[in-house]
Every structure is written in C-alpha cells, then in structure tokens.
C-alpha cells in the first residue's frame, strides 16, 4: 500500500528573493517570497528599481516637452500615454480637438492597444515556456511598428500628440496599410488561439491561478482588463466617453473568474474589438484640420512661420522658454482607458508655462499591490504565471 506523500515541511520557512534581475520580472520588479516547500506563504513586492522622477520632471518641463516623458511611462504603448496626457492638458484649457484629430488619436490609441497586448501575450507565454507565441506576436507587432514609424517618425517613442493636436497628419498610404493589417490580424490571432486557448499546459498553468474576486479587485483599485476579468463591466471608453469614443460601436469583453486565464481571454478579445474600432474610425474619418484653431496653443504651419510676421511671433511665443502655452490656474484629473487600465493625469496649474504638480495614476501600481493576495497559497511556479498575466510595466509602476 502506498502512503500519501506528506507535503508539509517542518523546517523554517525559506525566503526567496525573486528579482530584480529575473527573466519573468520584465525588468525591475522584485518580490521577496516566503516559502514552505513550494507553497508561497507570503509575497512582499519591492519596487522603485526603475524610479525615474517623472512627477518631479513634470514641474520643470513645459507642457509640450512633457509628452516626451509620457512615452517612457508605459513603453509598450507610448501612443496611449501621449493621448492621455494631451487630453488632460486640453481639459485644463477647456478645449476640444476637431473631429479628425480625435479620430486619428483613437485609431493610433487602438492600434497601440493591440501592440501592447501582443507584447504582453508574447512575454507572458514566453515565461510559461511557449516561445513560439512570442515570435508570432512580434511578427504582427513589427507591422504596427512600420505604421507607427511612418506616421510619427519613431518605432517606439512616438511623441505623436501635442497639446491641442498632433505632430502631423497621417501619411497618404496610411489607410491602406492599416486596412491590410486589420484584414490579416484576426487570422493571425486565431493561430495564437489555436496555440494557447485549448492548450492543456496553458490551461493548467493559468486556470484558477491568481484569482481575485470583484470585491477585492475594486478594493485594491483594479482597472482595465484585470478588473474586467473579474466580471466588472467598467471601461472608461464607455462610461466616460472621451475623444468621440461614443461614436463607435464596440463590445467590452468581461470575464467571470478573475484568474489568469480570464485575463488572457479578455485581452485577446479586446484586440478584436480594437480592430472593430479602427475599421469604423477609418470608414468615417472626417476631413479637416487636426489641430485646434488657436495659435496660442498649436504651432502655425511652416509656410506661415517663414512667410508672415504673425506666424513667426506665434511660433516664437510657443517655443521660447518662459513663454510657452499657459493654461489657466486650476486643477484637473483626466483619466483614459489605457491598455492596462485607468491611466489618470492629475495636473495642478499655477498659470505659468510649466505645471505646478503632475501626478500620474498608473494602473500597474494597483495591480501589483494586490500581488500578495493573488499568490498566497499558490506554488512558486504560479508566481511567474500571475506576474505575466497582470502585465506590470515597471516604467509606469515606479515612474
């Protein structure tokens, strides 16, 4: 007769320092695990390994310069951050972009949502041992890089938005490129589905792992796909539509279980919904200007700057140190639905060319905070699965 294995250990709990240099920590996360055998008794995250001083910089850079900094917050989807920040400053001014500008921003934000989820998919699958998904994901992402580069001039750090508009309008072949991407992408995503969704190993590693109930998720400040995986239907694009999101028809995928597998399914479906939004935006893309018609805020065209004295003065006033664009005194909080969740900017203005205080509400900060709750009682190998499913970006976590 075989005896059941006694899994309890009698010794002291073992402390394991996981990270900051570890393949699954995606850079700079560190978790100190207290283990009993392979069971996690307690997980204490340590952060700050990528603290860069973004909020302090916000008090020293002017409003348009800060857009460069927002690129480097969530570096998987810089366009979404540019978008969120520009929207916040525009709210401070109390102005709205022309329709075309809003639509272009929506297109770019949704494409970058796809790009973000692709990297998340690739790396979280890579951490669990599925290397081919990483390559499949990057193949698609390279196509998006091409579109981003042609539009903004950079692959990754795009800095595409400006306060009151955009860097420049879309290039002539943009619509064709995007449409051909949107045409192919669902097929490629289906290939990834066949690799993972019903894969026995993938399901065993992610189902019922890192589970969180909706009550706890709300209490911990969860937003975005991680919150929706618990069954809460909250998407800022629906409940507080900004930048014409109310004109698009799309669904918000919601999970039920709140585990790593549901977070995976929610994100996979979000990519398809983003494709829908992009298609609608391209179909109805209005003509017209992309920038607000105010030379106090948006730069005049090159012809005007070189050819007319007014244009030159406006240009000078916006660019020169000590002038710049100056919003009225006040404070605003503006949140957008970034790929990871609610990305909020709280800006306090004292009426000068630089903000008095810039506070960023990073979604990852809240997701990582509940890590102990998610992993307690799980196995060491689940740490990697949970960390991957949360998609914690150190750049916005530590700021």
């Amino acid at each position, binding site marked *: 007769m075989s005896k059941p294995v006694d899994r309890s250990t009698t010794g002291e709990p073992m402390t394991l320092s996981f990270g900051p240099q570890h393949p699954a920590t995606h850079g700079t996360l560190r978790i100190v695990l207290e283990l009993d055998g392979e069971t996690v008794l307690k997980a204490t995250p340590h*952060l*700050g390994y990528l*603290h860069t*001083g973004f*909020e*302090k*910089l916000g*008090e*020293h850079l002017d409003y348009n310069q800060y857009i460069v900094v927002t690129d480097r917050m969530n570096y998987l989807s810089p366009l979404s951050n540019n978008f969120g920040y520009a929207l916040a400053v525009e*709210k*401070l001014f*109390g102005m709205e972009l022309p329709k075309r500008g809003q639509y272009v921003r929506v297109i770019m934000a949704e494409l970058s949502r796809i790009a973000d989820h692709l990297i998340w998919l690739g790396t979280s699958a890579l951490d669990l041992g599925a290397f081919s998904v990483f390559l499949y994901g990057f193949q698609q992402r390279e196509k998006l890089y091409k579109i981003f580069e042609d539009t903004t001039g950079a692959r990754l750090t795009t800095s595409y938005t400006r306060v009151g508009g955009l860097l420049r309008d879309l290039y002539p072949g943009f619509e064709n490129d995007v449409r051909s991407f949107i045409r192919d992408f669902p097929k490629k995503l289906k290939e990834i589905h066949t690799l993972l969704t019903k894969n026995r190993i993938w399901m065993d590693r992610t189902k019922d792992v890192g589970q969180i109930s909706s009550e*706890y998720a*709300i*209490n*911990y*400040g969860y937003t975005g796909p991680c919150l929706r995986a618990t069954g*809460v239907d*909250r998407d800022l694009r629906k*409940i*507080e539509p900004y930048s014409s999101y109310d004109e698009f028809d799309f669904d918000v995928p919601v999970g039920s279980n709140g585990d790593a597998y549901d977070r995976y399914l929610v994100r996979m479906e979000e990519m398809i919904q983003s494709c829908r939004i992009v298609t609608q935006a391209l179909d109805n893309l209005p003509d017209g200007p992309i920038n607000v018609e105010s030379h106090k805020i948006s730069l005049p065209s090159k012809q005007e700057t070189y050819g007319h004295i007014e244009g030159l003065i406006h240009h000078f006033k916006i660019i020169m140190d000590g002038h710049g664009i100056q919003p009225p005194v*006040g*404070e*605003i*909080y503006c*949140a957008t639905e970034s790929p990871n969740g*609610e990305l*909020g900017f*709280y800006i*306090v203005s*004292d009426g000068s060319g630089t903000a*008095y*205080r810039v*506070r960023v*509400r990073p979604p990852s*900060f*809240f997701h990582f*905070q*509940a890590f102990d*709750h998610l992993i307690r009682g799980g196995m060491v190998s689940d740490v990697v699965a949970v960390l991957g499913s949360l998609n914690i970006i150190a750049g916005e976590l*530590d*700021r």
Partner: protein
Amino acid sequence: MSEEQTDAEVVEPPEPIVIQQLRERFSDHILTVIDQRGELSVVVDKDASFQVLEFLKVDFNLSYDFLVDVTAIDYSQMEDVLIEYGYARYMVVYHLNAFLTNERLRVKVPVSEKDFTIKSVVALWNSANWLEREIYDMFGINFDGHPDLRRILMPDDFEGFPLRKDYPLRGRGEREKFNFGRENV
C-alpha cells in the same frame, strides 16, 4: 421665461447632493467646495478627513466605493493657497469614484508642518496602502494607523523627500555617491 428667472437660476445653482449631505453631517469641517471644469472638490479639515471618507464610502446613496488615487501637493510656492488654509504647506488629495453612478469627487485635506500626521485610510481601501507609503516617501507626511509605513520607491537609506519643492531636481549628489556594500539589494 422672464429674464429675472434666468438670472436667479444662474446666481444660485443647487449644490450637488454629495455636498448637501456632507454639509449636513460635517458642517464645521467642510472648508471649501470648488466646482471647476465639471470636477467637484471638497476641502476638508484634517480632524474629520477619515470620517468624511468613511461616510462617502459606506453611505448607501453615495457609495464612493472606488479609491482612484491618493497623492499630495506641496503648496509652498503658491502663496494664495497657503494664505487660504492657514499656512498648511501640504495638501493630501483623494480621488474617489462611485461605481454605480460613475461620479467623481476630489477630497483635499490640508496638512501643516506643525502637525505632520494624518489618519490612514488603509482600513477603508487596501489600495491606499502603497499610495500612502509613496506620499510618505516623497513628501514625508506620516500616516497614523498605517500597517507598514516605510519608503517604497527610494532606497531605504535615502535622505530627503524628492517631491518637496525645496528638493532640487538633480538631487543632492545621491546619484554619484554609492554605497555598494548596501545590504538587501
């Protein structure tokens, strides 16, 4: 509609229900109410901050159950704000969101340097834990009743509070001098 009526409406817009309820309960502790750019802010006395937030969270009709963000501001270079709130240098800012009605509310609490402790809200929201640690790390404000108040972003042996206005952007030489023998790295 006569002109007099429109004038009357403009002069006295009804206060939002939240504010009415707060005034009813905490009349002495509500310092200012600001309605600006469609965002509602309430400045609350520090003694009542916890009670106000608890009421906002627990009250069935309001149920601001989602703590969006907690942060702080150093107002030492904004003279008018300093004067208005009795030279309280810092302001702790809570952003709340009600899930059902999707209304947002900002609660601001002045904290002066003389009495540098404010009651922690970790008992109400788990998410406040790290946010308050970050404020402690960046501004040095203490939170009474916080379970684990220590530095979060900066190293444990760091001196100074970076987001204070008197702390220089480029630091005080911390980035050149190194203690490589630091334990716990």
